[in-house]
Every structure is written in C-alpha cells, then in structure tokens.
C-alpha cells in the first residue's frame, strides 16, 4: 500500500430511529490498485464504522444487489473503480431500510397460512 488515500461520501440515515432526512458522511480510505466502490464500503464497515448498512453478495456483477447511486447514477458498486470524492446514495423509488440499503420486498400470502401474526412478547 502506497500511503495514498481517497475519500468517499456515503449516505447515512436510519428511518427506524425516526430520521426523516439523511446526511452524507465522508470517510478516508487507503488506496490500492484496483479498489472498487464496494471494496471501500466494505472497508468502512470492517475497519471504520461497523454500523454502515450495505447490501452485497457476489462481488462479481451477477447478483446485482449492490446497486446504488454512484455520483447520482445507478451502478453496481462492485464494478466501479473508486475515485477520490465519490458520492454514494441508496437507490431511489424503493423504501429505504437504512443508509445504502433499500427494501426489495417480501411476498406473503396470508391466506396460505393458518397463522401469520405479530405478537408483542
């Protein structure tokens, strides 16, 4: 590692904790040859702030779950080489779960079940 660093700004917001607006938080990442946007986000999660929410799975463009807005455009974060000062935000038009993660859904047909209920316990 050369000692060179890059910065990335990530959208942070926890709607479950009542946050109606998000903010961009800036992180400094060590640079390595070949680093992608997702590598930077995983680096943040493992080394800087364990609370960052990011969805990813395959790292090789097949699952398409790491999609997010990179500098305002929907991209697969695993494929995009990291550039200094990049901005990452969650996909619009989906319900935001937290930070960069949106809700892709659930399919429940309650008529199929004799019991499918919430109880406080």
């Amino acid at each position, binding site marked *: 590692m050369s000692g060179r660093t890059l910065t990335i700004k990530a959208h942070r917001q926890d709607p479950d904790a009542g946050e109606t607006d998000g903010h961009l938080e800036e992180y400094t990442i060590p640079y390595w*040859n070949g680093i992608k946007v997702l590598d930077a986000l995983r680096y943040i999660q493992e080394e800087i702030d364990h609370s960052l929410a990011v969805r990813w799975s395959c790292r090789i463009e097949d699952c398409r779950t790491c999609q997010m807005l990179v500098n305002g455009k929907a991209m697969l974060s695993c494929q995009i080489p990291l550039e200094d000062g990049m901005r990452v935000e969650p996909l619009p038009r989906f319900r935001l779960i937290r930070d960069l993660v949106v809700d892709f859904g659930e399919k429940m047909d309650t008529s199929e079940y004799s019991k499918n209920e919430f109880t406080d316990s």
Partner: protein
Amino acid sequence: MTSNKHRQIETDVVVIGSGGAGGEAAIHARKGGARVLIVDRGTFGRSGGTITAGHTCTAAVGDDDSPELHFRDTVIGGYSMADQRLVEIYANEAPPTLYELDEWGRGQTFRKDENGEFNLVWPPGGHSRKRSVHYGFMTGPRIMWALRREIQRLDIPWMENILVTSILTHEGRVSGIAALDWKAGAFITVKAKAVVLAAGGYAMLWPFRYSTNTVETAGDVHGMAYEAGAEMVDMEFIQFVPTQADPRITHINPTLTNFPGWRPKLREHGKFTNSKGEGFLAAYDDVRAWNTTRDIRSYAIYNEVRQGRGTTHGGCYMDLTTVPPDVMKHEFTQFQGGKSVPRSYMVRCERVGFDISKEPMEVAPKAHFTGGGVRTDTRMMSTVQGLFAAGEIQGGVHGANRLGGNALTHVVALGRIAGQEAALYAGRSEGTAVSDKISFAEQSKIFGWINQDGKGESPIRLRIEMQEKMWDQVGIIRNEENLKSAISWFKEAKADKLPRLRLSAKPKTFNLEWATAVTLPRQLDTCLLVAQAALERRESRGNHHRDDCMAMDNDNWLKNIYLHKDSNGAMATHTEPVHVTTIDPREVIDERPHIND
C-alpha cells in the same frame, strides 16, 4: 418500534435459501401439495452460489452419453469418496431436471442447436463425454431466472433477509425454525412439519479475499444442523479453485481464469508459470498439465507459493501474452458465436486498464465449493426426522473432489427430490408445536446482543480472525500440528472470546455487526467440524492435502468420516466404508487423477 415483536408463521415446508437448490425444493414441495415458505438471509432469488455459476451444468443427454457414464466419471473424479447411492440418483435425475428447467424458461433457459436439442460443450477436466448444457457464460443467472419465474407462477411466498438462528426440534423431529428478520429487526418463528436446508456451502469460512463465494455461504447453518442433531459427512473436503488474484480484475467472474484451461489453442500458446517464469504444472500432473483437475492445480499453485515462488497476491501467473493475436481474438470473441462472455470479460478487463493479451494474470487458489455437509439418505433427509438437505449443504455427493459442471446439476437435481420428499413427509406428519419457552429463550439471546451495554471486541473482528485461522491452518495444505492448533483456537474463541464480544453498532435494521454476532457461534462450530474431520483423515486424497501424510491410503481410508453431537454435547466421530452400488472403489484406482511424487 419493531424490536419486541415476535412474528409467528405456520406452514408445512420451510425452505432455507432461495438459490438453485432452494428454488427447486420449494417448487417441488409446492407441486407435491404442501404449503411452502422460502426464507433467505440475502436477497430473494439472487443469493448464494447458483447465480454466480458461469458456465457448465452437466447432464448425460448426448447421443454417446448415459447416466451410467456420468455416474462413473463423478465417482472416479471424487477419488471414490462419494456416496454412490446419491450419485446414481443425481446422474439419473439430471436430464429430466434440466428439461424441466428449460420448460420453466419458455424453452429458452439453455442454448439449443439447430435441431432444438441442448447445445452441448465440453465440461472442464474429468468428464469423458461432452455433457455441458449451458447458456453461454450466464448459465447460473439463467437457471435462477427460470426458477424465479416458476416460483412466481406458483405463487410461493418468500421472505428475504431472514437470518435463521436455530433449527427447532422436539423429540428428534424437526418442529420449525427461529430467525432474526434483520431487515426489520424482528424475531420470527416458523412452525413447520419439514425444514429443507438449502443454505449453500461453507466456503466463506475462509477470508473473503480467498473465497469465490457469495456472502451468504457463511457456514453457520451447518453448525445449526449439527446442533439440531444431524450427522455431518466429508467436512474435510474443500475445493479450492484457481482464480484471478490481481485486485484490478477480481470483480470479474472466476470463470475468466478457468476458461483458457479448457481451450486447447490457448493452452498450446499460453503458459502457466511461477514468479521465476518456470512452467510447473507438468511437474504435478505430467499427463494433463494445464488441463489437470482443480484440486491438483490449486495444490500446485499453493505449493509453489509456499516454496517462495509465488506472486504478490499469493498466486502464480497465467500468461496469455504469448498467444498470437488472431488466436486470442478468435477464442475470446468468437467462442459460442461471440455471445455474452468471454468477450465481456475482455471488455471488463479493458475497462479497468488490464489487457489480458499484454499482461500475465495472477492466479491464486480460493475456497470455491465445499464437498462436506449434512448426511442424507436417498430421500435427502438428514438423520433428524423432517430435516432435509438440498444443494451444497448436503454432503457426500462429490467425495474428495468435484468435477467442473457437477455443482449446478447436483443442486437442482437433488434439490428437486428434497422438495418432493419434504412434501410427502409433511403430508404424513402431524407436526410438533414450537415451545414458547424455547422460542422466548432464543429471542432473548438474539436481542441480548442489541440490549447489552459495555465495551468489548467486535464480532466482526473475531470473524476476520477466525477466517484467517482457517486459511493459515485449515487451508489447502494441512498437517496435524496446524489442525490441532486451529482446533484449540476455535474452542478457546467459543469459550472465552464469544462472551466478551460487544456490539458497537446498535441500529435494529440491517445491522451487519448484529448479524455477525448471531452467526459467529455457529460458524465456529462448523470450523471445528472441518478441522476435526481434516485431522481424522490421515492421508492425502483429492482436495484434502496433508503434508505429514502425503500418500493416498486406499488400505485404510476408503471410508467417510461422520461427525455428530453426542448425548453429552461432545463432538463424536465415526467412519463407515464408502457406500457403494456398482463401482468397487479399488477397481478404479488407476483411473483416478494423481499427484506426481
């Protein structure tokens, strides 16, 4: 707030995982008349290994082929370690399963020739017939597309981001599952008559940089099955496969590295060298050299690295710079009509400034497929009543090495049967109640993490340490000293380190640190299963290499290792001679791939 909610669901069959095996199992359980629910820790229909499978899906559908030949190749390729009863079913069921998958994709799941038959290509080393059914280099995603279509058509309910934490049992029978909905931060129990485990392998127990897998195959469900009383088999057999190691191009499907290995012209003009520029594969397999099986290629590369002849990123070079430009162009752009990959591999390499024809590519072995898992009978049921296993989590199907192209077939062909059998079982079963006491204890344990105060090590740190331990001491080349050291480390981590872990992140939704804390104890159990099995097998066979017992020992080790939790809670081991139907393991010894002395 959702944190204290307990969501209770009741169904007949719950399927854990929505990849190739989970999809097939859910569809066939539904068709068998059962109420089915799919839960996935990741994203529905996009998690797990199937979607990343680049190319081949093998089935004996060619005119010169037969399930008997496919069976034979698989058994020989697995160094006679596979359970032949399962391989027989797998080889016989493969063709009808693939025809059915093709129907689910409106006859367009796989590529066809001009007569409308499956277009067959040669699978990677070890197969004696041309038997790869494919959709260019997008076979895995295509299979998932067909499965999602059929799941949707049948209206099968599914939930995503459901992290299963326990398989619930009552008097030796399965009664359901407990889980954390880590999207909502809620506790869930599903009461079910049958549970199908389709959660994939455990290749992510190794450091992420040394694994080709998707993040879901964390190996914790194996520990859960073991805890629930299931017997585990073949846990020592891990397939490491050489893939590109230069971080500039690790975002490309590993098939990029395998592809030249099957193309005679690329092999003829290209080179596979260590950091000293020496070709070395022939020294490990003088017959097939570059086209050798994956276990030998991985062993060879790792051994070169160990001897100080490795590259910066722990590998060797695959050098295509000596391939004439016209051959390169033809191979990479005209292959299978030039559709999809590997042309797109070239494009993606170019995008990051890597020219595969001008620069040698670093290639290093990574954990790719895990041959061990839950022991099943021929109905795919484990030793726990009502607990089924489908796909990579099922052990015993491939033995000591898996041939390329056999994984997709295994997960869909046997997943299909697991679904059918789970529905039959559920139809006959009354089901048992999920005890309130047990589910309350489970909920308290899970939410204990988030409610706990104080400072301590993060579970994420311990997970990384565990993975590094697996790479250093339970990796490609093993020995007694390292395995024993690893076992005591895992035991100590369970006893001393786990209780001291604390979360620094307290959000209730999509909290990776919380999910890691919940998963880690199970993962440590699975690490122990792998290390223990590797310690027991005092020989080298297939992808299990011991540098303190290098020889394959057919006199003592034509048997499988089984592990289960005994009544005192201790790990018990026993062996059984390999289960044979028609091939005597001794008869095929000379046909097996070998490592040169």
